[in-house]
């Protein structure tokens, strides 16, 4: 019982967060639904041809099929009811269920986002530590320029430039998409092609998927590399001259041990918050990067849904992104407690 009791704050925390997740999800669906209705435009104009729009029977069939012939409150309540049963509706642009679409596009974005985040964290935090350790020296000044460049350069421009240099000029990476033409996707396990290819033992497909992943993930990571470099530098500088750090040095520990075990751990609490924010940047940046690199992910789907006024898809994407953000924040909150036991979840 004591053991269970000791976990109660955590259970309460999780339950509260889950309740918030449900409430926020309903709120998100309402806002997405309301905004889509307020925006001038009609899905008929976006989805039927010029002549088909003038055929009453075709328009009526379209409206009936997508439930657009019902009063707005009924449409919304029906959406919520279907949502309760795991039905997110049918996309007007792909003619597939939104759940199926999300299941298809989300892994592509996840593969890209996870790789970009790993690159950003490893490189950004590494460079930030280096800048702090060598503060006010030429390395620090050079890294300041690099990080400011990463933050300032528009992602779409960088994507085009990277494609031009590394694909067109140097031929080091493939041009776009997730696989070469003619290479079939590996058997579906997670939808992450690199992982699925490994599971299936398809080494050539893994290598192909990996090569396609490199450039878009580097481009997507660059902004966050700049961001994390700056934040890590500040966070490390705040603690690098603390007494316990001096004490560690006095004990004769090597500098890299002092920095990694004592300084970085103390700086990590604030870094975790920034990494959470960095994830938001990756989700935003994926819209542009996916379009330029022909990466069939949620970003492309969101863009095309918005231009086609595809209400079920817009609602589905909004809901999906909101849940991802909430979960990321949830994980960040949990990590605070893991990194610094003094922080209690309550």
């Amino acid at each position: 019982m004591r053991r269970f009791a000791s976990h109660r704050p955590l259970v309460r925390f999780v339950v509260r967060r889950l309740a918030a997740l449900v409430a926020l999800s309903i709120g998100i669906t309402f806002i997405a639904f309301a905004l889509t209705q307020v925006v001038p435009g009609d899905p008929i104009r976006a989805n039927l041809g010029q002549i088909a729009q003038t055929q009453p029977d075709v328009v009526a069939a379209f409206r009936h099929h997508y439930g657009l012939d019902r009063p707005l409150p009924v449409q919304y309540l029906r959406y919520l009811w279907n949502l309760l049963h795991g039905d997110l509706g049918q996309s007007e642009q792909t003619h597939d269920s939104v759940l199926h679409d999300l299941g298809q596009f989300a892994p592509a974005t996840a593969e890209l986002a996870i790789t970009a985040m790993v690159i950003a964290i490893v490189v950004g935090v590494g460079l930030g530590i280096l800048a702090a350790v060598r503060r006010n020296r030429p390395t620090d000044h050079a890294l300041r320029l690099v990080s400011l460049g990463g933050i300032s350069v528009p992602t779409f421009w960088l994507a085009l430039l990277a494609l031009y240099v590394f694909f067109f000029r140097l031929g080091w990476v493939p041009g776009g998409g997730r696989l070469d033409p003619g290479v079939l996707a590996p058997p579906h396990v997670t939808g992450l092609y690199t992982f699925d290819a490994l599971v299936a033992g398809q080494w050539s497909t893994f290598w192909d998927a990996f090569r396609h992943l490199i450039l878009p993930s580097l481009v997507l990571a660059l902004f966050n590399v700049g961001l994390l470099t700056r934040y890590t530098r500040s966070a490390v500088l705040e603690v690098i001259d603390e007494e316990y750090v001096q004490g560690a040095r006095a004990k004769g520990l090597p500098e890299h041990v002092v920095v990694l075990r004592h300084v970085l751990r103390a700086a990590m609490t604030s870094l975790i918050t920034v990494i959470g924010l960095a994830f938001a940047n990756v989700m935003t940046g994926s819209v542009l990067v996916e379009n330029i690199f022909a990466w069939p992910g949620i970003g492309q789907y969101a863009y095309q849904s918005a231009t086609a006024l595809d209400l079920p898809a817009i609602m589905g994407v909004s809901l999906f992104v909101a849940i991802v953000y909430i979960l990321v924040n949830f994980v960040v909150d949990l990590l605070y407690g893991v990194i610094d036991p003094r922080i209690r979840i309550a």
Partner: protein
Amino acid sequence: MRTAVPIVTVLAVAVLAATAAGVAQSASRASGTLVVDNSFVIRTTDPQREFDPTGSIVAHAMYDTLVTFKGSGTKPVPWLATSWKATNGAKLFTFHLRKGVVFSDGTPLTSADVAFTFRRLINIKASGSFLLANVTVSTPNASTVVLRSKVPNPALTRILANPALGIVNSKVVKANGGSDAVGADKKDKAEKYLDANSAGSGAFVLKQYTTNQQIVLEANPRFWGPKPKFSTVVIRNMTAPTQLLNVQRGANEIALDLSSRQASSLKGKSSVQVHIDPSPNLFNIDMNMSPKVSPVTSNPHIRKAVRLALDYKAFAALGGPGSIQAAGMVPSVFLGALPSQYAQKRNVQQAKAEVAASGIASPTITLTYPAGLTINGIDFGVLAQKTKANLAEVGITANLQGLPVNAMLQQYAAGKDQMTQSYWGPDYPDPNDYQVFLPGGTAALRVNWKTGMDKPLEALGKKALQTTDDVARASLYRQIQRKLNADSPFIPLFQPSQAIVASKNLTGAVLNFTWLIDVRSVGTR
């Protein structure tokens, strides 16, 4: 820690460099594979439900139609139908089917499949259903198909080449939820099956359709016609800037969405071939005929003034290399196009005189355009600015109203635009498609030009619909367009150019606006 930067740099460069070998490998893997880059506009690969550019490429490759066009032509030639005749004033059409054609599963293709396909298209009430409006189908025997139209329909043979009328294997489609009965808009469930499989007799079968990513086609071993040169075709979703790079580096590659300016920049490159031709798309100005919506544009003197004020050569130049002034509303590549000597000419002095004759002091118009929309590489905002500048020279003030496309289309369809910077893409390559610009037509109603507002013109339109002889039809449509140019709500501006860029070694890479590209006809030198 001192070595962190070099390590990071070395790692990044090593990873990028290590992939270079893979790129070389992929080039060799692509032999036997044709790669077509296209900015996807596709909702399905079900031929009766598709009516989008990318969908038409795929449907045309997998499903045969009764008739077809050669290259970029618009004259119907035999395909599944070896012969046909039109009788009863273009109301009765009899088609004789080719013998020995089988679907990809080996089932023989008969008239029952044709009837099922056409009835399904009509009854599912999809975007392409209007193509067979007022048409019924019957099958006297297994190799004959009879189409009856309630109204004279001399355009029907050209319409039948549309990929939306690609013949499906009725047994397979029925077995997978398909229906051709009345009420098929609710009952037909075959789309899901046809998005994962093909059920046609065409040169290719569907191997993989990944939404927003790529479509993989494989040669159909049972295809009855000339064997395709490539065993695999991959159609990839790529933006135009990426296509521009891909086509220069790849082998057996085609780029479909480059603007004429982008394509022109590749002329002279040893690795590619560039073809730029006038497209059948038409950029035009619409003026509202309702005094309630605009007392200015409904004034015939103002309409005349606008027609005289526009600098047509400059508009064609904005369209890029290969663009031409549109002499009339029917594009230059279609039957009945107006010869260039009848094209409107600019006359600023006369335009000013017309403004004075209108009796309206300081005429002011709201010019609506789709903000942010680019077609054939041409930005509507730039065109609207040009129109505004031209009108200002003759004393007409145009206030620009740029709206998001969907909002603009809604306002336009409601007939509320005073003046619109507009555009028309043909649904099928026949002048009948341009009846929409006559009083009471789809486009005419959007500027409140209703039936009865120009009876002589309407009579000419009716006569053109009832005429079956192509020479006589062409003459009638030329008369119609000269009348439209004299006074109507529509001003044809220009036909933009369309470009196709392909690897140098390819043959048969030709644009056809009905299906963009016939991948079966693409070969190598």
